[in-house]
């Protein structure tokens, strides 16, 4: 099951947001991938893969979740990605 969302964190999916996201993926217990539209899918439980992919604020990404309950996991992870996890800078 797939869904396309836009990343809302001010500094993209690096540092703290990347950490929190991979933790959320691992906690879901599902096989999850994240990719740019038409891009190569990255294991969403891999913090190294996520950081190296360099997803930025405003990027569209495609989430793919396999298995039972995929819809609920997609809802949770989409909500995470569309929330800003970086504090406002001055």
């Amino acid at each position, binding site marked *: 099951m797939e869904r396309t969302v836009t990343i*809302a964190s*001010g*500094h993209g999916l*690096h*540092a*703290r947001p*990347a*950490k929190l996201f*991979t*933790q959320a993926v691992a906690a879901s217990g599902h096989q999850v991938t994240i990719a740019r539209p038409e891009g190569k899918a990255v*294991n969403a*439980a*891999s*913090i*190294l*893969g996520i*950081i*190296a992919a*360099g997803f930025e*604020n*405003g990027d569209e990404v495609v989430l793919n979740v396999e298995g039972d309950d995929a819809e609920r996991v997609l809802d949770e992870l989409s909500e995470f990605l*569309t*929330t*800003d996890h970086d*504090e*406002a*800078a*001055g």
Partner: protein
Amino acid sequence: MIEVRELRGVGVGTGVVVGPVLHVSRQTAAAPTDARSALGADAELARAREALASVSAQLRERAAGADEATRDVLEAQALMTDDPELIASVERHLGSGVTAEKAVADAFGEFAALLADAGEYFAERAADLHDLSDRAVAALQGRSTELVVDPGHPYVLVARDLAPADTAVLDLDRVLAFVTSEGGPTSHTAILARQRGIVAIVGAVGVEGLPDGTQVIVDAERGRVWVDPDAAELADAEARIAARQAAADAPAGPGALADGTPVKLLANVGKPGEAAEAVRLGAEGVGLFRTEFLFLDRLTTAPSVADQQESYREVLAAFPGKRVVVRLLDAGADKPLAFLSPGEEENPALGQRGLRALRASASVLADQLTALAGAQAQTEAELWVMAPMVATVEETAFITRAIHDAGIRTAGVMVEIPSVALIADRVLSRTDFASIGTNDLTQYTMAADRQLGSVAALQDPWHPAVLRLVKEVGAAGAALGKPVGVCGEAAADPLLAVVLTGLGVTSLSMSPTALADVRVSLARHTLDDARAIAEAALAADEAADAREAARAAADTITAGR
């Protein structure tokens, strides 16, 4: 051997300490060889998993005892060490018959190369991976990865650079200063020094050559390490340490220059909970209360008037009888909000942000002003309200009227766009005060994106072009008798604070931890001194030259007394 007397680096803060050098390093791993494994791939994989798990467990253990910022870094590093793709890569490398040591080093190396190619920010993460790789290989080789330091006396810590996993186990109470041979002003060492108020000099090439026990003066203000100082140098250093201590111990009176000219020292506050800390550190009020925190976690709707009013009341209540400058919601660019967002823009920094976005959502503006006026009525603080991203006289007149009409007496505008700095006389004649946001003013003057590492060198508020704009605003404020503040990073730089005052700025707002150093720096100079130092900076061609010229002018004036 030529005797080294003086080393140069980048100082963090303005402190001075005297003490003995102690080199701190942990055992590093020996470089793994290409030797074929005698154990077989399965046994090597088990060894690799065990070593990675031990490093990750150690990181998590240190994270548990660390402060919040360090904890985030260490937890991220533990996740990197546990990364499923890293293990997959180790397994691939083991397929060619190498040892676990070699496979682990190559797997980390693969990811580090990927990150190093991706730009400046990622290069720092690549440095993290080298550190993790070294720890894992050392664990495989049976070497300790602990950093053991307890000389039993205070010391000047010397290292190549410090990793978060290292500093988490240090007893920082024993550390007089950090001096590192590598790393820059954004390195982990510098950040930790700033957080903990520890004197530090980073990038001091040559420090690795000093033997343990060497007596040094670490002078962060001048970015110098003096080796084996003579009696006169020691006496000078001790006098400066005593003066700094006396200033820190003295009850923090109102900020002022040496001739008594008042310069209000205010705090930047991002959340209501930060107000108490600002009061404790001697802030005379708040110069910038950012209100975005109330809105940022909201996806579709703005917070209610009642919720907003309660948050504003909390901050205002901490400052009875004192000034609290609240900035209206500054949405857009780096802080997009779904319910205020104008949709896709090619150049959001030049788009519908700040006051422009507020004007497009009249109800958000009206609610915020209503909540602020309500909080004003509940407290004794002197509420000032200002608008971000003002570009014209018409916008100034509009927002000033809106703030006054809400029942708030003092209205102002932020000077972030060069247009309003250039016609500051006309802008200030239509409002009550101006506050210069030096971060954005520099971004727009130099056309250099604040968030883009590749143009970071242009993002320097010392640039004479930026200083000249500050001078325009300062002069207009003086002519019209209107207050002009600065609330960007620039205000926290002790020397630049003097320059800004010389350019006509009447209040400085900064993160509360910077207040003490700025207070001391201002008290050393009269208004005439500050003007002369500002002139020296204005006459320079480049930001670095302006900083040097101001430093030289300040030293000459102080030496002449």
